[in-house]
């Protein structure tokens, strides 16, 4: 009975909205459909991962935006994890100053809106940094100015591709080795320290790739001209403002997640492992962390998703992420429904795929129950 009522109500509501929309569009002469994606965009994008020119299509422009969003989100996730874990562990430091510092950081950064922080960082970069002519530089390799941050990067070529392949192979091998070492530990109880050999394996992979690639040595090094910095890799002040504000803001939340996770492991577990003769470091690695991870991972995933969603605020400082490009497209083509739908679709895909992946991970990590 209730169900029928609900279905009828929802159906009516959807019909009402859809009908009104069609009616309005007909009256205002707005065209609908996604065919505009093939039309030429006509605007340029300041910062792209793939080459883009104004004569190319709206579709490609939005794809450039998606890549920009992913770039800032992925780098942000890595940095925020490192900073957040350090801050969270710092809350348990024996040193009162470190504890106090971590506490004040968390309270300060999570109680101020991210948008405000982003605007402030951007303002700092635009106001305080020197003009490109007199950029701050470090060893003539790194330059920091209003123009952004310039750094050396390897010239693109087949040689470096081999290095990259070597790196990936090294990481894969190291992971396999770690699995084998942990398996051996479970069988024999003899603990092989996986840390240093893993690093070694990765290094060997990289060096092997470098040798196989013909030992390339060319780097594109930025050079300070009178008005601008040329060559090398470069990131814009907009990118830095978005990245830094997202990292600092989310790290405060990650720190709280990590602290909660570590606190959730009961004291008895630590005492028991001490009684078994495990060293404090082993206790942390083998007893506390694996259990804390179960508590940490689900909220940590949420924080990663929050970071990705908050990256949409980049529109406020003019970093060309997907929202900002879709917004420009909206203003130019007038296809409001389609553009907002595209934004939502992009984020929904990211969110849903992440939560699917995380659910699978959780299932693997969960304590087997009856």
């Amino acid at each position: 009975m209730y169900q029928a009522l609900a279905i009828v109500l929802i159906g009516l509501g959807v019909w009402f909205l859809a009908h009104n929309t069609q009616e309005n569009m007909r009256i205002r002469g707005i065209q609908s459909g996604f065919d505009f994606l093939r039309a030429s965009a006509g605007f340029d994008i300041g910062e792209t991962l793939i080459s883009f020119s104004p004569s190319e299509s709206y579709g490609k422009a939005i794809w450039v935006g998606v890549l920009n969003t992913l770039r800032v989100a992925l780098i942000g996730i890595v940095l925020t994890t490192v900073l957040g874990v350090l801050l969270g562990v710092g809350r348990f430091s024996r040193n009162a100053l470190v504890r106090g510092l971590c506490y004040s950081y968390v309270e300060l950064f999570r109680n101020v809106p991210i948008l405000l922080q982003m605007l402030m960082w951007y303002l700092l970069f635009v106001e305080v940094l020197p003009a490109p002519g007199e950029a701050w530089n470090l060893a003539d390799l790194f330059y920091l100015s209003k123009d952004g941050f310039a750094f050396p990067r390897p010239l693109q070529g087949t040689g470096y591709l081999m290095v990259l392949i070597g790196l990936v192979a090294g990481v894969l091998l190291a992971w396999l080795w770690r699995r084998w070492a942990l398996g051996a530990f479970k069988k024999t109880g003899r603990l092989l320290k996986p840390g240093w050999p893993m690093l070694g394996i990765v290094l060997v992979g990289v060096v092997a790739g470098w040798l196989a690639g013909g030992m390339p040595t060319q780097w594109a090094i930025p050079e300070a001209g009178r008005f601008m910095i040329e060559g090398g890799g470069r990131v814009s002040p907009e990118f830095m403002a978005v990245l830094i504000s997202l990292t600092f803001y989310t790290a405060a939340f990650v720190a709280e997640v990590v602290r909660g996770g570590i606190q959730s492991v009961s004291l008895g577990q630590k005492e028991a492992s001490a009684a078994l003769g495990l060293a404090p470091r082993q206790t942390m690695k083998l007893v506390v962390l694996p259990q804390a991870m179960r508590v940490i991972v689900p909220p940590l995933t949420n924080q990663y998703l929050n970071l990705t969603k908050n990256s949409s605020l980049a529109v406020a400082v003019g970093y060309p992420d997907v929202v900002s490009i879709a917004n420009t497209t909206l203003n130019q083509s007038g296809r409001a429904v389609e553009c907002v739908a595209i934004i939502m679709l992009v984020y929904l895909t990211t969110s849903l795929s992440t939560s699917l992946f995380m659910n699978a991970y959780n299932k693997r990590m969960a304590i087997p129950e009856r």
Partner: protein
Amino acid sequence: MTQHFVPIAARPSPVRTRGAVPWVRTHLFGDLRSSITSVFLLGLAIYLLPRLYSWGLGNAVFSADAQACQNMRGVGACWGVVTEKYRLILLGRFPFEEHWRPVLATSMMLAALVVSCIRAFWKPWLALVWMSVLAVFFVLMGGGVFGLSRVRTDLWGGLPLTVLLATVSIFLAFPLSIAVALGRRSHLPAIRSACIVYIELVRGVPLISVLFMASFMFPLFMPQGVSIDVLVRVVVGITLFAAAYMAEIVRGGLQAIPRGQLEAADTLGLSYWQTQRKIVLPQALAMVVPSIMNNFISIFKDTSLVTIVSMYELTGALSLALNSDVNWRPFKIEAYLFITVIYFLFCFAMSRYSLWVEKQLTASKGR
């Protein structure tokens, strides 16, 4: 042989474990690594604090004198920008002579918020108080009656708008979230799937896209001739967004109620609604109060996003006040710091309050 009594040496007096010196010894110089860290951090503080002091207070300009500020640029802060512009920043574009109205309305709202936080006032009449406070707020802000001049909602701005958006969204989102959470656990598949779709859809997208929808697409959804105020549209957007998150929190509480209680209620012959109202919700809601408070804090912070769809709440009013003024624009950072302090005070107070509530709740569970 006579035996002499030889007293053993007196034991050293026990090391003091209380007081300032022992505290410093254990907490700052406990071991070598800790000592090095302490020395480094103290050194950093000695280096930074005097500089911070001379910038923020020592060399700072407090009077609204743009020339003096310009002279001290880079040496001292220019708090004069706050002295000069605080009314614009705090109240936005509201007509200047009528500023007493938003001030009065906002103080009333804040007073009501503070009162609602005190346990002695958790009585049914509080709802009545809130309704009258909201009514008076809208009358004071909007005017048009009692001889108050009419002020359109697009002139509302600054702190009143921030407080209004946050409060109204929270009040509307809370009941909606309970309904949706119950719906998600309902046995009726149509209702359940509708609620799941709503929750997952909204949680998957950023607030800004919801706000875009409210400001660009909403006019298309309405029948011809019906136009809804942008303030209402934005409130609806924030409410729908916040309710999805809150529904998941409430669902967590609902799931924590043991099945036995539901079965017992069934056995006693209570209907579905009686069970939810008298057995499930009181326990479930009490359990999730801290998380809900956290959600309130994030709604408060999220109201700053409406500036992207051209509403001039605190963040937007600041840009409005400074962007058009060449004299004061260089000192935007000081103005930003000023509203940072406002946001921080609100959010920090809320998080402290949520800790207090949490303590109250666990007190009943303690032995």
